[in-house]
């Protein structure tokens, strides 16, 4: 709890949101990159079905997605039971883990689609050329794919991060709105508005806004500097 401009607000939702967004971005980068690569290089007609599946979170209302996550992640569900075998004792829903899992699903298309398009735009010949110059698979990824698909990665990261920061329906369902534990900033703002605490809502919104503008400016600025250096 801090006091700013004479208004007392808890900053906990802010930190939680940043933590969830950062973790989600990291996880989606690790999972989304191979998935997007696989989809981009896939030639079978099954690809369309998989692309549609990846895009599903765009179509499903967040509360619906949240409801299905409640079913999938419940303490007696197969996922939690499987984790019990590895000594997991907690509960997936109403926890940071649940928030991150929910956000990963919800933001999946925002990470996979830009990456997929970047990979599709990558000329295969350049990878062939690297292979004929004795570059192995990982070598090719880091020295050819990564620098050439850099914009795709940047878009994927910023969209994922921003989308997670702004999400509401899924985290509300999966998180359970527990103060100081799973109450993300979007929920906190919503609750303030619903309780007619407009000053608190404005303050939190303002901080979120300033933070987002600063981060996005930094990222795009870095991108430009890097681009100039290469070009």
């Amino acid at each position, binding site marked *: 709890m801090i006091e700013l401009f004479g208004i007392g607000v808890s900053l906990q939702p802010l930190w939680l949101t940043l933590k969830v967004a950062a973790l989600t971005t990291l996880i989606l980068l690790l999972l989304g990159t191979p998935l997007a690569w696989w989809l981009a290089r896939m030639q079978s007609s099954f690809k369309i079905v998989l692309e549609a599946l990846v895009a599903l979170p765009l179509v499903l209302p967040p509360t619906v997605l949240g409801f299905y996550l409640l079913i999938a992640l419940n303490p007696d569900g197969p996922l939690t039971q499987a984790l019990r075998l590895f000594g997991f004792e907690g509960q997936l829903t109403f926890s940071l883990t649940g928030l991150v899992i929910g956000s990963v699903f919800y933001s999946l298309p925002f990470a996979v689609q830009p990456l997929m398009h970047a990979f599709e735009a990558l000329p295969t010949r350049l990878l062939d050329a690297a292979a004929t110059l*004795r570059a*192995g698979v990982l070598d090719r990824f880091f020295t050819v794919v990564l620098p050439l698909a850099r914009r795709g990665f940047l878009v994927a990261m910023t969209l994922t991060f921003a989308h997670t920061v702004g999400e509401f329906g899924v985290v509300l369902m999966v998180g359970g709105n527990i103060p100081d534990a799973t109450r993300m900033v979007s929920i906190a703002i919503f609750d303030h508005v619903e309780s007619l605490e407009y000053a608190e809502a404005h303050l939190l919104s303002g901080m979120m806004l300033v933070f987002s503008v600063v981060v996005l400016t930094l990222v795009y600025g870095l991108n430009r500097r890097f681009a100039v250096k290469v070009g």
Partner: protein
Amino acid sequence: MLKGHLTLRQGRFLLDAGPFEIDTRGVTVLFGRSGSGKSTLLRAITGLDRHARGQLEFHGERWQDGAWQLPTQRRDIGFVFQDAALFPHLSVRGNLDYALRRAPLSPIPPGGGGAGGEGGRRALPFDLVTLAARVGIADKLDRDVLSLSGGERQRVAIARALLSRPRLLCMDEPLSALDWRAKAELLRLIDELAREVGVPILYITHAPIEVERLADRVVFMADGRIEHIETLREALARPDSPLFDEEGPVSVLEGETGATDEDGLTPFGNDRVRLRLTGGCARGSRATRLRILARDVSLSLDDPARISILNHLPVTVERIDPEHEGRVTVACRLADGQLLLAEITAYSLRRLGLHAGAAAYALIKSVVLMD
């Protein structure tokens, strides 16, 4: 030695090459129309297509066995693509460094023990800067590759491929995207480098002139199959050679150019066959191949003295090919044993009474130095 049997299906197209055995010394040209499967075969040989099946060995080293493939990056090959395929995020120097940093440090004897060091990796006689100067891009090292002309890009691509010290250099129509001047300059560069560096080259083209200029050996392809593997000399000796499809029969004479004399003529040939060439193109050239269209060669029973044609060579008629639309191609043996084709009318053939074994003079109206 490249030995194997490869198949590769791409939609409705089926490559079914082999069993084949290609002596890779010098320059081997894969020749065929577009769609004949030459690029597909090259992708199968280099391991760039995962769907290739069959057997492949390079100097006893297994490259393909059924569906198993030795990854491209472990095949010790270099590749020059049609469009150069330079890395756009790296400078010219960056592209060359990419190859250099991944190249083996010292010459290694061939793993499978190819005969007489053939197929083994040789020490590259160049470092990065020297090679850049040799291919003519010394002043472009710090340039962005996107700012280069088509010819310059191919020069960088060739240097990049050589810097990775390949045991086999593959080139897929490296000149097809260039204008005629850049084509001529690069053709000369490739010809010279092939000899200087000594790395075996597999070269794809559908242009007969590139075959005649570069090839030691030609692999003819059509409809996804290898039709013939023969030396350039053999390929030019048969009347139905696919090389003749566009301009009719062609002869390629090998020899050396000498010093230009006081008449402004440049001698070409050897001690038994001697031609004299006019014009600035011959001056100062070190060309070793001369291209003569059969339709530019006439035959005479005696050596005409009062005639403007400069080059008269005594020949022996070796073979007369069947008449086609009133014309015949006569294969003549020169004094040094090289073959010269003359295309004359069937009427003239009968009037002169030419037959295999007959002596005659070949009058050569025009030649092209392959320079």
